[in-house]
């Protein structure tokens, strides 16, 4: 018998912006368009800095981007 180990993954999106874009196809939005743009910027910078493609930024972080 083989055990299939399913890692705890998130099919809805690896990042806040991916989840936001998926959510807008389903129920609606959770951040404004401007905040989404800033979140994408933060995700890009975080990926460059720490090399991870997974993150979950909030509008608290987005509002600090000027």
């Amino acid at each position, binding site marked *: 018998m083989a055990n299939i180990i399913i890692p*705890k993954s*998130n*099919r*809805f*999106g*690896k990042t*806040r912006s991916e*989840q936001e874009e998926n*959510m807008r196809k*389903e*129920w*609606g*939005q*959770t951040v*404004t368009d401007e905040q989404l743009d800033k979140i994408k*910027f*933060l995700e890009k*910078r*975080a990926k460059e*800095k*720490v090399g*991870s493609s*997974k*993150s*979950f*930024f*909030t*509008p*608290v*972080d987005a*509002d*600090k*981007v*000027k």
Partner: protein
Amino acid sequence: MSTFPDGLFQYGGEPVGGARYSSPWATSWFVDGTNGYDGFDGKAPDRSKKTVQAALTAASWGDVVYLRPFQMGAGAVWPADLSEPGYYAETLTVPYTTHWLSMIGVQPGAKDPSYCRIVAPETINTWGLTVNAPCFHAENLTFKLYESHATPGTPYGVVNLAATVGAAGYSTAGGSNGASFYNCSFESGQVKVRGGYHSLFSRCQFLNMYVTCDQGNGNLWFDAHEVPAFQHEVENCLFESSTVAAPTYHYVYVNGSQYTFWIHGCRFDRKPTSGVFYENYGAVGGMMTDCFFNEDAVTCGTSSKEVLIGSGQFEVVGCYDRTSLIATT
């Protein structure tokens, strides 16, 4: 790192690495009070849980719970609000093991937190949401007290960030540590933050919809008389009286061993009839900056003032009433 001395980022600058609430290993959970079913696994919008608590119970640390608002007139409603969305009538608890949890309301558009409502019960000392886990995060949610209860000044609350953990005694590792609320509305009930550190209320509204729902220790109570508190922050929030009368009691009450408490960019509506806009009780340290008070001749000091600073080292800087800069202490 930030390219500005005040910690702001800019396009082209580098953010401080990672997100404050990064949860890259998280599971997303979905709650739909209209179409959901608690027997579903809750891991996709078309397999949503029906109740918020079912999702909170299923979730583990670092997870994200998305809440879908009810349709107009659907779900539980009260007669006065038939033209508004229904609400999740639940008493919610986030257990200690479910730390780092995010609970996010989904909106049909814009930034109106009122669409996704969680209503507290009418039971004294029972809270709509009790958070026992560190680093809880909420966005776009309305926490509301059902308005028909009785005595003003009694402790009916909507959110309790509890620092006490189990029977082992007090701990600073409880629900008030690292909690954050963004674009949330707290209506007619109290939000209590017990001790702990680094909580944040950003761009939230605290509304006194009904005078009978006034809270004796404020709409927002930072209570450190049992557990010390450090570096709590309130920014860009609105403290609003009802449309018919000024509230009875304080908007914000801070007491006990509070260190480096910071409130900035907030707007306070009409002065409470039996309280003050803001009170530090005891040796509270920190600062109030860039706040506005919707009355004339607002003053601050240690007694008989509209803003009471307590006996600690607390500065009031750059705050205005309707006519002038209020005295800096």
